[in-house]
Protein backbone atom coordinates (compact mmCIF):
# COMPACT_ATOMS: atom_id res chain seq x y z
CA UNK A 1 0.00 0.00 0.00
CA UNK A 2 1.17 3.53 -0.62
CA UNK A 3 2.47 5.94 1.98
CA UNK A 4 0.85 9.29 2.85
CA UNK A 5 3.19 12.23 3.34
CA UNK A 6 1.63 14.94 5.55
CA UNK A 7 2.59 18.61 5.28
CA UNK A 8 1.38 21.65 7.27
CA UNK A 9 2.61 25.09 6.25
CA UNK A 10 1.72 28.79 6.44
CA UNK A 11 1.96 31.35 3.70
CA UNK A 12 1.87 35.12 4.17
CA UNK A 13 0.21 37.13 1.44
CA UNK A 14 -0.50 40.81 1.08
CA UNK A 15 -4.14 41.90 0.80
CA UNK A 16 -5.98 42.15 -2.52
CA UNK A 17 -3.80 39.64 -4.29
CA UNK A 18 -5.03 36.84 -6.47
CA UNK A 19 -4.03 33.58 -4.82
CA UNK A 20 -2.50 31.18 -7.32
CA UNK A 21 -1.36 27.65 -6.56
CA UNK A 22 1.13 26.18 -9.01
CA UNK A 23 2.35 22.58 -9.30
CA UNK A 24 5.78 21.88 -10.78
CA UNK A 25 7.23 18.42 -11.53
CA UNK A 26 11.03 18.61 -11.83
CA UNK A 27 12.96 15.97 -13.75
CA UNK A 28 11.66 13.45 -16.28
CA UNK A 29 8.71 11.08 -16.51
CA UNK A 30 6.53 12.16 -13.56
CA UNK A 31 2.74 12.08 -13.79
CA UNK A 32 0.43 13.52 -11.19
CA UNK A 33 -3.12 14.49 -10.32
CA UNK A 34 -3.63 17.32 -7.81
CA UNK A 35 -6.74 18.72 -6.18
CA UNK A 36 -6.92 22.12 -4.48
CA UNK A 37 -9.77 23.29 -2.30
CA UNK A 38 -10.50 25.97 0.27
CA UNK A 39 -11.89 24.02 3.21
CA UNK A 40 -14.00 21.82 0.94
CA UNK A 41 -15.70 24.64 -1.01
CA UNK A 42 -15.21 23.75 -4.66
CA UNK A 43 -12.49 21.47 -5.96
CA UNK A 44 -9.99 22.56 -8.59
CA UNK A 45 -8.03 19.86 -10.40
CA UNK A 46 -4.54 20.14 -11.89
CA UNK A 47 -3.23 17.40 -14.19
CA UNK A 48 0.60 17.12 -14.11
CA UNK A 49 1.92 20.72 -14.07
CA UNK A 50 -0.35 23.70 -13.96
CA UNK A 51 -1.93 26.34 -11.82
CA UNK A 52 -5.18 26.96 -9.99
CA UNK A 53 -6.58 30.41 -9.25
CA UNK A 54 -8.16 30.20 -5.83
CA UNK A 55 -9.50 33.67 -5.08
CA UNK A 56 -8.70 36.96 -3.39
CA UNK A 57 -6.18 36.89 -0.54
CA UNK A 58 -8.23 39.33 1.56
CA UNK A 59 -11.24 37.01 1.59
CA UNK A 60 -9.08 33.94 2.15
CA UNK A 61 -7.21 35.26 5.19
CA UNK A 62 -6.84 32.64 7.95
CA UNK A 63 -8.53 30.05 5.79
CA UNK A 64 -7.09 26.61 5.15
CA UNK A 65 -6.00 25.53 1.71
CA UNK A 66 -6.20 21.73 1.29
CA UNK A 67 -4.15 20.07 -1.40
CA UNK A 68 -3.97 16.37 -2.23
CA UNK A 69 -1.60 15.06 -4.86
CA UNK A 70 -0.32 11.66 -6.01
CA UNK A 71 2.80 11.88 -8.18
CA UNK A 72 4.32 8.75 -9.78
CA UNK A 73 7.45 8.46 -11.87
CA UNK A 74 7.47 6.10 -14.88
CA UNK A 75 11.08 6.68 -16.00
CA UNK A 76 13.27 3.69 -15.19
CA UNK A 77 16.37 5.95 -15.24
CA UNK A 78 15.01 8.21 -12.47
CA UNK A 79 15.35 7.17 -8.83
CA UNK A 80 13.39 9.91 -7.06
CA UNK A 81 9.85 11.27 -7.17
CA UNK A 82 9.75 15.05 -6.91
CA UNK A 83 6.99 17.65 -6.74
CA UNK A 84 7.10 21.37 -5.91
CA UNK A 85 4.09 23.43 -4.91
CA UNK A 86 4.13 27.22 -5.11
CA UNK A 87 1.65 29.77 -3.76
CA UNK A 88 2.04 33.08 -5.59
CA UNK A 89 5.51 31.98 -6.75
CA UNK A 90 6.68 31.22 -3.21
CA UNK A 91 7.95 27.64 -2.91
CA UNK A 92 5.86 26.23 -0.08
CA UNK A 93 6.20 22.46 -0.49
CA UNK A 94 9.26 20.70 -1.92
CA UNK A 95 8.52 16.98 -1.86
CA UNK A 96 11.10 14.35 -2.75
CA UNK A 97 11.22 10.63 -1.99
CA UNK A 98 13.24 7.70 -3.30
CA UNK A 99 11.26 5.29 -5.46
CA UNK A 100 12.80 2.49 -3.42
CA UNK A 101 10.98 3.92 -0.40
CA UNK A 102 7.61 4.63 -2.08
CA UNK A 103 6.50 4.47 -5.73
CA UNK A 104 2.95 5.84 -5.27
CA UNK A 105 3.17 8.59 -2.63
CA UNK A 106 0.00 10.40 -1.59
CA UNK A 107 0.60 14.00 -0.48
CA UNK A 108 -1.76 15.48 2.12
CA UNK A 109 -1.09 19.24 2.44
CA UNK A 110 -2.64 21.93 4.64
CA UNK A 111 -1.61 25.54 3.98
CA UNK A 112 -2.92 28.36 6.17
CA UNK A 113 -3.17 31.70 4.38
CA UNK A 114 -2.05 34.53 6.64
CA UNK A 115 -1.91 38.27 6.20
CA UNK A 116 1.46 39.67 5.40
CA UNK A 117 3.04 41.60 8.27
CA UNK A 118 5.08 43.83 5.97
Amino acid at each position, binding site marked *: *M*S*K*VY*FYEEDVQLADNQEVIVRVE*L*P*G*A*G*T*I*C*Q*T*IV*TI*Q*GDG*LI*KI*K*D*EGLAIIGDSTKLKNKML*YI*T*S*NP*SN*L*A*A*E*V*TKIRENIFVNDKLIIQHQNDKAEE*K*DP*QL*DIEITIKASTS
Partner: protein
Amino acid sequence: MKHIIALCIILLLLPAILWAQVDIEKTKAPGSPASSILEMQPSGILQPKSYKALETALFSNYVNNQGSISIPNDFMIEFSPYWAKDPKLDIEQYLFPNPWESLVRNASFSLASTQNYYLGDSTKSKALGFGFRSTLVISTNKEKERLAKQLETIYNTKDLKNLMYMYARMSLRKQSESKDKFIGQYLKDLKAKDSTLNHITHFTVNEKSLDELSSLLHKQLPEYNSQQKNDFLQIVNNVLDQYLKTIETRENIELLIGNRPGFKLDVAAALSLDFPTNEFNLSEVPQQSIWLTPSYSFSGEKSNIEVLGVMRYNYHNSNFYEKYFPQKVFNQHSFDYGLGLSIVYQKFSLLFEVEGRRSREVLESVSGADGIVNQRIRYDSDLQYIGSFNYQLSDKLMLTYKLGKKFEPVINYDGTLISLLSLNFGIGGPTKENISAKQ
Protein backbone atom coordinates in the same frame (compact mmCIF):
# COMPACT_ATOMS: atom_id res chain seq x y z
CA MET B 1 4.26 -34.77 -10.38
CA LYS B 2 5.46 -38.42 -10.60
CA HIS B 3 6.74 -37.74 -14.12
CA ILE B 4 8.70 -34.74 -12.94
CA ILE B 5 10.37 -36.72 -10.15
CA ALA B 6 11.26 -39.52 -12.60
CA LEU B 7 12.73 -36.98 -15.00
CA CYS B 8 14.85 -35.45 -12.22
CA ILE B 9 16.26 -38.85 -11.30
CA ILE B 10 17.11 -39.64 -14.93
CA LEU B 11 18.89 -36.32 -15.36
CA LEU B 12 20.91 -36.84 -12.19
CA LEU B 13 21.96 -40.35 -13.20
CA LEU B 14 22.99 -39.50 -16.77
CA PRO B 15 26.47 -38.00 -17.25
CA ALA B 16 26.25 -34.34 -17.97
CA ILE B 17 28.00 -33.34 -21.16
CA LEU B 18 28.98 -29.71 -21.04
CA TRP B 19 29.63 -27.81 -24.19
CA ALA B 20 31.39 -24.48 -24.41
CA GLN B 21 30.00 -22.40 -27.21
CA VAL B 22 29.69 -18.87 -28.43
CA ASP B 23 25.94 -18.43 -28.45
CA ILE B 24 23.83 -15.56 -29.70
CA GLU B 25 23.59 -14.08 -26.21
CA LYS B 26 27.36 -13.48 -26.19
CA THR B 27 27.31 -12.04 -29.71
CA LYS B 28 24.54 -9.52 -28.96
CA ALA B 29 25.57 -6.01 -27.95
CA PRO B 30 26.50 -6.56 -24.28
CA GLY B 31 25.02 -4.67 -21.38
CA SER B 32 28.55 -3.66 -20.45
CA PRO B 33 30.95 -3.63 -23.41
CA ALA B 34 33.94 -2.72 -21.21
CA SER B 35 33.66 -5.79 -18.96
CA SER B 36 32.62 -7.98 -21.89
CA ILE B 37 35.84 -7.28 -23.82
CA LEU B 38 37.87 -8.20 -20.73
CA GLU B 39 35.73 -11.37 -20.38
CA MET B 40 35.21 -10.64 -16.72
CA GLN B 41 32.20 -10.40 -14.43
CA PRO B 42 32.55 -7.29 -12.24
CA SER B 43 32.10 -7.90 -8.54
CA GLY B 44 31.67 -4.17 -7.91
CA ILE B 45 29.63 -1.84 -10.14
CA LEU B 46 29.14 1.88 -9.69
CA GLN B 47 26.61 3.89 -11.69
CA PRO B 48 27.13 7.53 -10.69
CA LYS B 49 24.14 9.75 -11.44
CA SER B 50 25.95 13.09 -11.69
CA TYR B 51 29.29 14.41 -12.93
CA LYS B 52 30.32 15.12 -9.34
CA ALA B 53 29.53 11.52 -8.36
CA LEU B 54 31.50 10.30 -11.41
CA GLU B 55 34.51 12.36 -10.36
CA THR B 56 34.30 10.92 -6.85
CA ALA B 57 33.93 7.36 -8.17
CA LEU B 58 36.98 7.68 -10.44
CA PHE B 59 39.13 9.38 -7.84
CA SER B 60 38.29 7.06 -4.97
CA ASN B 61 38.71 3.84 -6.99
CA TYR B 62 41.50 4.59 -9.45
CA VAL B 63 43.81 6.78 -7.38
CA ASN B 64 45.57 5.35 -4.34
CA ASN B 65 46.60 7.07 -1.10
CA GLN B 66 49.94 8.09 -2.59
CA GLY B 67 48.18 9.93 -5.42
CA SER B 68 49.19 7.52 -8.18
CA ILE B 69 47.00 5.48 -10.51
CA SER B 70 45.82 2.07 -9.31
CA ILE B 71 43.70 -0.56 -11.00
CA PRO B 72 40.96 -2.13 -8.88
CA ASN B 73 40.13 -5.77 -9.45
CA ASP B 74 36.90 -6.84 -11.25
CA PHE B 75 35.37 -3.42 -10.99
CA MET B 76 33.26 -1.32 -13.31
CA ILE B 77 31.88 2.18 -13.61
CA GLU B 78 29.00 2.92 -15.97
CA PHE B 79 27.87 6.45 -16.71
CA SER B 80 25.03 7.96 -18.75
CA PRO B 81 25.80 11.60 -19.60
CA TYR B 82 22.23 12.49 -20.62
CA TRP B 83 20.68 11.50 -17.29
CA ALA B 84 23.46 13.14 -15.28
CA LYS B 85 22.07 16.53 -16.34
CA ASP B 86 18.67 15.80 -14.67
CA PRO B 87 16.71 16.62 -17.83
CA LYS B 88 13.18 18.00 -17.68
CA LEU B 89 10.76 15.85 -19.73
CA ASP B 90 7.01 15.45 -19.44
CA ILE B 91 5.62 11.95 -19.81
CA GLU B 92 4.89 12.22 -23.55
CA GLN B 93 8.39 13.54 -24.29
CA TYR B 94 9.86 10.74 -22.17
CA LEU B 95 7.83 7.92 -23.74
CA PHE B 96 8.00 8.97 -27.39
CA PRO B 97 11.46 10.32 -28.31
CA ASN B 98 12.51 10.54 -31.95
CA PRO B 99 15.26 8.07 -33.02
CA TRP B 100 18.11 10.54 -32.50
CA GLU B 101 16.80 11.49 -29.04
CA SER B 102 16.57 7.81 -28.09
CA LEU B 103 20.19 7.28 -29.17
CA VAL B 104 21.36 10.21 -27.03
CA ARG B 105 19.28 9.22 -23.99
CA ASN B 106 20.37 5.58 -24.05
CA ALA B 107 24.08 6.34 -24.52
CA SER B 108 26.37 5.13 -21.76
CA PHE B 109 30.11 4.82 -21.26
CA SER B 110 31.73 2.10 -19.21
CA LEU B 111 35.16 1.63 -17.68
CA ALA B 112 36.08 -1.83 -16.38
CA SER B 113 39.28 -3.06 -14.75
CA THR B 114 40.76 -6.34 -13.68
CA GLN B 115 43.99 -7.59 -12.16
CA ASN B 116 43.42 -11.07 -13.58
CA TYR B 117 43.87 -10.68 -17.33
CA TYR B 118 45.65 -13.98 -18.05
CA LEU B 119 48.44 -14.12 -20.60
CA GLY B 120 49.44 -17.26 -22.50
CA ASP B 121 51.89 -18.41 -19.81
CA SER B 122 49.16 -18.05 -17.13
CA THR B 123 50.68 -14.84 -15.76
CA LYS B 124 48.14 -12.40 -14.45
CA SER B 125 48.27 -8.88 -15.77
CA LYS B 126 46.30 -5.70 -15.12
CA ALA B 127 43.93 -4.50 -17.79
CA LEU B 128 41.33 -1.85 -18.49
CA GLY B 129 38.30 -2.00 -20.74
CA PHE B 130 36.64 1.06 -22.29
CA GLY B 131 33.15 0.75 -23.70
CA PHE B 132 30.28 2.65 -25.25
CA ARG B 133 26.72 1.50 -25.77
CA SER B 134 23.42 2.95 -26.95
CA THR B 135 20.05 1.93 -28.38
CA LEU B 136 18.09 3.53 -31.16
CA VAL B 137 14.34 2.99 -30.74
CA ILE B 138 11.55 3.44 -33.28
CA SER B 139 8.06 2.83 -31.91
CA THR B 140 5.09 1.77 -33.97
CA ASN B 141 1.90 3.84 -34.07
CA LYS B 142 -0.02 0.87 -32.66
CA GLU B 143 2.31 0.74 -29.67
CA LYS B 144 1.99 4.49 -29.12
CA GLU B 145 -1.81 4.17 -29.10
CA ARG B 146 -1.63 1.25 -26.67
CA LEU B 147 0.59 3.20 -24.28
CA ALA B 148 -1.56 6.32 -24.60
CA LYS B 149 -4.62 4.25 -23.65
CA GLN B 150 -2.85 2.79 -20.62
CA LEU B 151 -1.71 6.29 -19.64
CA GLU B 152 -5.32 7.47 -19.73
CA THR B 153 -6.24 4.59 -17.40
CA ILE B 154 -3.58 5.53 -14.86
CA TYR B 155 -4.53 9.21 -14.97
CA ASN B 156 -8.20 8.28 -14.38
CA THR B 157 -7.27 6.02 -11.48
CA LYS B 158 -5.13 8.74 -9.90
CA ASP B 159 -7.88 11.31 -10.40
CA LEU B 160 -10.42 9.07 -8.72
CA LYS B 161 -8.17 8.17 -5.83
CA ASN B 162 -7.25 11.79 -5.22
CA LEU B 163 -10.90 12.82 -5.21
CA MET B 164 -11.92 10.04 -2.85
CA TYR B 165 -9.03 10.81 -0.53
CA MET B 166 -9.95 14.50 -0.49
CA TYR B 167 -13.58 13.56 0.29
CA ALA B 168 -12.32 11.42 3.15
CA ARG B 169 -10.44 14.43 4.53
CA MET B 170 -13.49 16.64 4.32
CA SER B 171 -15.80 14.00 5.78
CA LEU B 172 -13.44 13.52 8.73
CA ARG B 173 -13.68 17.26 9.45
CA LYS B 174 -17.46 17.01 9.53
CA GLN B 175 -17.79 13.76 11.45
CA SER B 176 -15.05 12.27 13.59
CA GLU B 177 -17.06 11.14 16.58
CA SER B 178 -16.56 7.47 15.75
CA LYS B 179 -15.39 5.20 12.98
CA ASP B 180 -18.92 4.16 11.99
CA LYS B 181 -20.16 7.76 11.89
CA PHE B 182 -17.19 8.77 9.78
CA ILE B 183 -17.87 5.94 7.29
CA GLY B 184 -21.55 6.89 7.14
CA GLN B 185 -20.70 10.56 6.48
CA TYR B 186 -18.05 9.62 3.91
CA LEU B 187 -20.36 7.41 1.85
CA LYS B 188 -23.10 10.04 2.06
CA ASP B 189 -20.71 12.71 0.73
CA LEU B 190 -19.55 10.45 -2.10
CA LYS B 191 -23.14 9.76 -3.18
CA ALA B 192 -24.38 13.36 -2.82
CA LYS B 193 -25.95 14.81 -5.97
CA ASP B 194 -23.46 17.67 -6.11
CA SER B 195 -20.51 15.39 -5.51
CA THR B 196 -17.72 15.78 -8.05
CA LEU B 197 -17.70 12.01 -8.43
CA ASN B 198 -21.03 12.27 -10.24
CA HIS B 199 -19.30 14.20 -13.02
CA ILE B 200 -16.61 11.61 -13.67
CA THR B 201 -17.21 9.50 -16.78
CA HIS B 202 -14.85 6.68 -15.80
CA PHE B 203 -16.59 5.83 -12.49
CA THR B 204 -20.24 5.26 -11.54
CA VAL B 205 -21.34 6.21 -8.06
CA ASN B 206 -24.02 3.85 -6.81
CA GLU B 207 -24.76 1.48 -3.91
CA LYS B 208 -23.12 -1.44 -5.68
CA SER B 209 -19.90 0.39 -6.51
CA LEU B 210 -19.55 1.67 -2.94
CA ASP B 211 -20.53 -1.57 -1.15
CA GLU B 212 -17.04 -3.02 -1.45
CA LEU B 213 -15.50 0.26 -0.23
CA SER B 214 -17.80 0.33 2.77
CA SER B 215 -16.95 -3.27 3.63
CA LEU B 216 -13.18 -2.62 3.41
CA LEU B 217 -13.44 0.50 5.56
CA HIS B 218 -15.42 -1.28 8.26
CA LYS B 219 -12.95 -4.15 8.27
CA GLN B 220 -9.69 -2.20 8.32
CA LEU B 221 -10.29 1.09 10.09
CA PRO B 222 -9.67 1.24 13.86
CA GLU B 223 -11.80 3.37 16.15
CA TYR B 224 -11.04 7.03 15.52
CA ASN B 225 -8.67 8.82 17.88
CA SER B 226 -8.03 12.51 17.23
CA GLN B 227 -4.44 12.09 18.44
CA GLN B 228 -3.83 9.62 15.64
CA LYS B 229 -5.62 11.38 12.81
CA ASN B 230 -2.74 10.83 10.37
CA ASP B 231 -2.60 7.09 11.09
CA PHE B 232 -6.37 6.93 10.48
CA LEU B 233 -6.00 8.70 7.13
CA GLN B 234 -3.11 6.40 6.21
CA ILE B 235 -5.46 3.42 6.59
CA VAL B 236 -8.15 5.17 4.53
CA ASN B 237 -5.47 5.64 1.87
CA ASN B 238 -4.56 1.93 2.02
CA VAL B 239 -8.21 0.98 1.58
CA LEU B 240 -8.53 3.25 -1.46
CA ASP B 241 -5.42 1.65 -3.00
CA GLN B 242 -7.01 -1.78 -2.62
CA TYR B 243 -10.42 -0.65 -3.83
CA LEU B 244 -9.14 1.19 -6.91
CA LYS B 245 -6.15 -1.13 -7.59
CA THR B 246 -3.89 1.91 -7.99
CA ILE B 247 -0.65 0.01 -7.53
CA GLU B 248 -1.54 -2.68 -10.07
CA THR B 249 -2.46 0.02 -12.61
CA ARG B 250 0.94 1.65 -12.21
CA GLU B 251 2.73 -1.73 -12.41
CA ASN B 252 0.85 -2.60 -15.61
CA ILE B 253 2.02 0.49 -17.40
CA GLU B 254 5.58 0.03 -16.13
CA LEU B 255 5.52 -3.47 -17.62
CA LEU B 256 4.29 -2.12 -20.95
CA ILE B 257 7.01 0.56 -20.97
CA GLY B 258 9.69 -2.01 -20.16
CA ASN B 259 8.61 -4.42 -22.95
CA ARG B 260 7.82 -2.17 -25.85
CA PRO B 261 7.34 -3.63 -29.31
CA GLY B 262 8.88 -2.02 -32.36
CA PHE B 263 12.30 -1.67 -33.88
CA LYS B 264 15.50 -1.33 -31.84
CA LEU B 265 19.12 -1.10 -32.85
CA ASP B 266 21.70 -1.75 -30.13
CA VAL B 267 25.17 -0.41 -30.91
CA ALA B 268 28.26 -0.97 -28.82
CA ALA B 269 32.01 -0.64 -29.08
CA ALA B 270 34.87 -1.49 -26.79
CA LEU B 271 38.62 -1.82 -26.57
CA SER B 272 40.89 -3.42 -24.03
CA LEU B 273 44.15 -1.99 -22.71
CA ASP B 274 46.57 -4.43 -21.11
CA PHE B 275 49.66 -3.80 -19.00
CA PRO B 276 51.54 -7.07 -19.61
CA THR B 277 54.34 -6.32 -17.14
CA ASN B 278 51.91 -4.73 -14.64
CA GLU B 279 53.80 -1.46 -15.09
CA PHE B 280 52.13 1.58 -16.60
CA ASN B 281 55.08 2.38 -18.86
CA LEU B 282 54.18 -0.55 -21.13
CA SER B 283 50.66 -1.00 -22.47
CA GLU B 284 49.11 -2.85 -25.40
CA VAL B 285 45.68 -2.87 -27.01
CA PRO B 286 44.93 -6.59 -27.47
CA GLN B 287 41.41 -6.38 -28.83
CA GLN B 288 38.77 -4.06 -30.22
CA SER B 289 35.15 -4.96 -30.93
CA ILE B 290 32.05 -3.42 -32.45
CA TRP B 291 28.55 -4.85 -32.01
CA LEU B 292 25.33 -4.15 -33.92
CA THR B 293 22.07 -5.84 -32.89
CA PRO B 294 18.94 -4.83 -34.80
CA SER B 295 15.73 -6.37 -33.49
CA TYR B 296 12.01 -6.14 -34.05
CA SER B 297 9.51 -7.14 -31.41
CA PHE B 298 5.83 -7.88 -31.96
CA SER B 299 3.84 -7.85 -28.78
CA GLY B 300 0.33 -9.18 -28.29
CA GLU B 301 -1.93 -9.61 -25.29
CA LYS B 302 -0.52 -13.00 -24.33
CA SER B 303 2.43 -13.47 -26.65
CA ASN B 304 5.65 -11.91 -27.78
CA ILE B 305 7.66 -12.52 -30.92
CA GLU B 306 11.12 -11.06 -31.41
CA VAL B 307 13.35 -11.27 -34.46
CA LEU B 308 16.92 -10.16 -34.11
CA GLY B 309 20.09 -10.00 -36.13
CA VAL B 310 23.52 -9.88 -34.55
CA MET B 311 26.81 -8.66 -35.96
CA ARG B 312 30.14 -8.41 -34.18
CA TYR B 313 33.48 -7.43 -35.59
CA ASN B 314 36.61 -8.27 -33.60
CA TYR B 315 40.11 -7.05 -34.23
CA HIS B 316 42.91 -8.94 -32.48
CA ASN B 317 46.32 -7.31 -32.27
CA SER B 318 48.61 -9.89 -33.94
CA ASN B 319 51.79 -8.51 -32.35
CA PHE B 320 50.31 -8.86 -28.88
CA TYR B 321 49.01 -12.39 -29.39
CA GLU B 322 52.16 -13.63 -31.10
CA LYS B 323 54.22 -12.31 -28.20
CA TYR B 324 52.04 -13.32 -25.25
CA PHE B 325 50.06 -16.25 -26.66
CA PRO B 326 52.65 -17.96 -28.89
CA GLN B 327 51.00 -21.42 -28.64
CA LYS B 328 47.53 -20.36 -29.73
CA VAL B 329 46.12 -19.57 -33.14
CA PHE B 330 44.28 -16.26 -33.41
CA ASN B 331 42.76 -14.56 -36.38
CA GLN B 332 43.40 -10.86 -36.70
CA HIS B 333 39.96 -10.07 -38.09
CA SER B 334 36.82 -12.01 -37.25
CA PHE B 335 33.23 -11.29 -38.04
CA ASP B 336 30.36 -13.05 -36.23
CA TYR B 337 26.87 -12.72 -37.61
CA GLY B 338 23.59 -14.33 -36.77
CA LEU B 339 19.83 -14.35 -36.79
CA GLY B 340 17.55 -15.21 -33.91
CA LEU B 341 13.84 -15.79 -33.55
CA SER B 342 12.15 -15.84 -30.15
CA ILE B 343 8.51 -16.74 -29.59
CA VAL B 344 6.91 -16.59 -26.17
CA TYR B 345 3.37 -17.83 -25.71
CA GLN B 346 2.14 -18.05 -22.14
CA LYS B 347 4.39 -20.64 -20.43
CA PHE B 348 6.02 -21.88 -23.58
CA SER B 349 8.95 -20.26 -25.39
CA LEU B 350 10.94 -21.16 -28.46
CA LEU B 351 14.27 -19.70 -29.50
CA PHE B 352 16.07 -20.50 -32.72
CA GLU B 353 19.51 -19.05 -33.56
CA VAL B 354 21.87 -19.32 -36.51
CA GLU B 355 25.38 -17.93 -36.17
CA GLY B 356 28.21 -17.73 -38.62
CA ARG B 357 31.84 -16.75 -38.22
CA ARG B 358 34.30 -15.54 -40.81
CA SER B 359 37.85 -14.77 -39.89
CA ARG B 360 40.92 -13.65 -41.75
CA GLU B 361 44.59 -13.71 -40.83
CA VAL B 362 47.58 -12.47 -42.88
CA LEU B 363 50.16 -15.22 -42.35
CA GLU B 364 52.95 -13.79 -44.46
CA SER B 365 53.52 -10.61 -46.40
CA VAL B 366 56.45 -10.31 -48.86
CA SER B 367 57.28 -7.26 -50.94
CA GLY B 368 58.88 -8.04 -54.31
CA ALA B 369 61.51 -5.97 -56.14
CA ASP B 370 58.81 -4.75 -58.51
CA GLY B 371 56.88 -3.24 -55.56
CA ILE B 372 54.14 -5.87 -55.65
CA VAL B 373 53.22 -7.23 -52.20
CA ASN B 374 52.46 -10.92 -52.01
CA GLN B 375 50.43 -12.07 -49.06
CA ARG B 376 49.56 -15.49 -47.72
CA ILE B 377 46.15 -15.18 -46.07
CA ARG B 378 44.21 -17.74 -44.05
CA TYR B 379 40.41 -17.60 -44.17
CA ASP B 380 38.25 -19.51 -41.73
CA SER B 381 34.50 -19.84 -41.63
CA ASP B 382 32.12 -21.79 -39.48
CA LEU B 383 28.44 -22.05 -38.74
CA GLN B 384 26.43 -22.99 -35.69
CA TYR B 385 22.71 -23.28 -35.09
CA ILE B 386 20.70 -24.11 -32.06
CA GLY B 387 17.04 -24.47 -31.17
CA SER B 388 15.91 -24.07 -27.60
CA PHE B 389 12.50 -25.15 -26.28
CA ASN B 390 11.48 -23.96 -22.83
CA TYR B 391 8.45 -24.68 -20.70
CA GLN B 392 7.85 -22.85 -17.44
CA LEU B 393 6.63 -25.60 -15.11
CA SER B 394 6.23 -23.19 -12.21
CA ASP B 395 7.52 -19.79 -11.08
CA LYS B 396 10.82 -21.36 -10.05
CA LEU B 397 11.09 -24.34 -12.39
CA MET B 398 11.82 -24.39 -16.12
CA LEU B 399 12.27 -27.36 -18.45
CA THR B 400 14.66 -26.72 -21.36
CA TYR B 401 15.80 -28.73 -24.34
CA LYS B 402 18.51 -27.49 -26.73
CA LEU B 403 19.41 -29.14 -30.02
CA GLY B 404 21.86 -27.98 -32.64
CA LYS B 405 25.42 -27.76 -33.92
CA LYS B 406 28.13 -25.60 -32.40
CA PHE B 407 31.23 -23.93 -33.82
CA GLU B 408 34.23 -26.18 -34.29
CA PRO B 409 36.50 -25.43 -31.30
CA VAL B 410 40.16 -24.56 -31.90
CA ILE B 411 41.43 -27.19 -29.46
CA ASN B 412 39.98 -30.39 -27.96
CA TYR B 413 37.80 -31.13 -30.96
CA ASP B 414 35.32 -33.80 -29.93
CA GLY B 415 32.29 -33.15 -32.08
CA THR B 416 29.88 -30.32 -32.68
CA LEU B 417 26.47 -31.82 -31.83
CA ILE B 418 24.52 -30.12 -29.05
CA SER B 419 21.75 -32.02 -27.34
CA LEU B 420 20.91 -30.90 -23.82
CA LEU B 421 17.86 -31.52 -21.69
CA SER B 422 17.82 -29.63 -18.41
CA LEU B 423 15.53 -28.85 -15.53
CA ASN B 424 16.41 -25.47 -14.12
CA PHE B 425 15.33 -23.93 -10.88
CA GLY B 426 16.35 -20.74 -9.10
CA ILE B 427 15.44 -18.31 -6.37
CA GLY B 428 14.68 -15.46 -8.75
CA GLY B 429 13.01 -17.77 -11.24
CA PRO B 430 14.86 -18.72 -14.41
CA THR B 431 14.06 -17.06 -17.72
CA LYS B 432 14.98 -18.15 -21.19
CA GLU B 433 17.50 -15.27 -21.30
CA ASN B 434 19.71 -16.57 -18.51
CA ILE B 435 19.78 -20.22 -19.46
CA SER B 436 22.64 -21.08 -21.74
CA ALA B 437 24.29 -24.29 -22.80
CA LYS B 438 27.55 -22.74 -21.52
CA GLN B 439 27.81 -24.09 -17.99
